[in-house]
């Protein structure tokens, strides 16, 4: 499972970076979404998972068997931040289109 996730991180990241480097801002926005997903998945994969981890509910787990809530908190926060950034990029894209800014990026 972990190997599959790691490969997924690689593919998403590669696709995301490739699109981010494209000349069109539209592609850069899509690339950013892919890249953001890759990084979120990376955080999930990089943090150790206990094999028989129980969910952090009151009577379902003891401190020894609990699933680590911190990486999940990180990822949730990152998803929300990514949402905000994506919204901004799209708004920038709309504005750039409207103003006729040429979509070349360095």
């Amino acid at each position, binding site marked *: 499972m972990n190997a599959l996730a790691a490969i997924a991180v690689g593919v998403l990241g590669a696709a995301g970076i490739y699109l981010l480097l494209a000349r069109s801002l539209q592609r850069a926005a899509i690339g950013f979404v892919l890249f953001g997903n890759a990084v979120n998945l990376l*955080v999930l994969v990089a943090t150790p998972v206990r094999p028989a981890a129980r969910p952090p509910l009151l009577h379902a787990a003891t401190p020894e068997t609990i699933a680590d809530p911190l990486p999940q908190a990180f990822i949730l926060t990152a998803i929300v931040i990514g949402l905000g950034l994506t919204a901004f990029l799209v708004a920038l894209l709309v504005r750039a289109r409207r103003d006729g*800014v040429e979509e070349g*990026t360095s």
Partner: protein
Amino acid sequence: MNAAALLLLPIALPAVAGLLMAALPGRARLHQGLALGVAAGLCVAAAALVVATVDGAVLVLRLGGWHPHVGIAWAADGLAAIMLALAAVSALAATLSLPGSLGLEEERWLRPLLMALLAGVNASFLTADLFNLFVCFELMLLASFALIALGGGRERLRGALPYVLINVVASGLFLAGVGAVYGTIGTVNLAELSARVADGAPPAFWAAMALVLAVFAIKAALAPVFTWLPDSYPGAGIAVSALFAGLLTKVGVYALLRVVPLVGGDGVIQAVLLPIAAATMLLGVLGAFGRDTIRGILSFHVVSQVGYMVFGLALATPFALAAAIVYVIHHIVVKTALFLAGGVFERQAGTGALKAMAGLAHGRPWLAAAFFIAAMALAGMPPFSGFWGKLFLIMAGLEARAWVATGIAVAVGLLTLGSMLKIWAGIAWHEREGEAPAPRADRGMVAGAMLLVALSIAIGLAASPLLAHARRVADQLATGDAYRTAILGETRR
């Protein structure tokens, strides 16, 4: 209880004010009054924090009362207090310069965004948690994305694109690095991290940490990832680019100053940083010679001066660290002053090109004198603040026997002087053909610039007590014991 209130103020003040402004849109004078009030309040709060930490105390706030392992802790030590004070002063000068600095239409969101930026910057200075640092960086960055594009047309928007894209990629890398750090060492709290690393860390941790430090280097505009700065800063609104040039890159430098001594690494990190710092100093000033607009030149200088600060960090002695801190203090004040003073002339001439600014200094002798003082301070001429900053760094370099890098620092100082004289010649010495355009009414910007230059002169005169304080702060930074004990609650060794 007292400590908690002081630590909350630098974030709560701008956040609440920003929300108020967003709830009452369109009332520019109310916004400006609120913004000035917040800036003044920040100055007072930061001064109180500096006083509270001057004897080496570390004030800690555990958000929600959670233990730092699972929760977020905010800590104010000497360095954080200094950075908060500098941020407050820069914010005050920039807020004074706001009226009329940008196109009127966008002014509606200018000050709320500025408040969000300040909240993010202040929180970055106070946080002791790597992931919280990521969140605060994002807050700061999102506000800065909007601010950098505000007020202009197509040109400004186009200039903002590289800034936005580089920073979102850097943010993604930062998150990846933080996740990997958590995965390899089991904590993202800086104090706990430092304690665990001292007991030995797996090699994967160092790879993750290298990624995180690389992101800080991007934010600080170090070589070779600094090109976004001269590409994007000159195009923004004047007060905005002044605040960014003075403050935003220093957040990256602060992150390096905070994390590198805590993490240690047997000097490998510092050894890598030394040639990077030397290259940054050199490339920054050489790039300045290729520009002919006032803010274009000054932007490259920002890069070069950041190289000086990291040079101090890379020398790895407490005195060098203290010299770097003095340099950061001097630079934030002087750089913001230069951008603002130069901005007045730019507004008068209607363009930033030096060719169009011939003879403008004669119409505004006091401001021109202030600009000259700030320029000489940046170049390192005695008796101004920059002289002391550079002198301490060079002394530290010689003490640490880093001959090549110190030689580069001296040479770059001379080149910076040449570059500043090029600007000065453009403003003051060239003969003007035809009449000069009428000076615009921008008392606020002039006031902001004068305030900062006065502060810079004071720094220059008070170099000795400043160095003494910086040495105390640097010693605290270098050992990290006070920081760890205050946050974790007991000594870990």
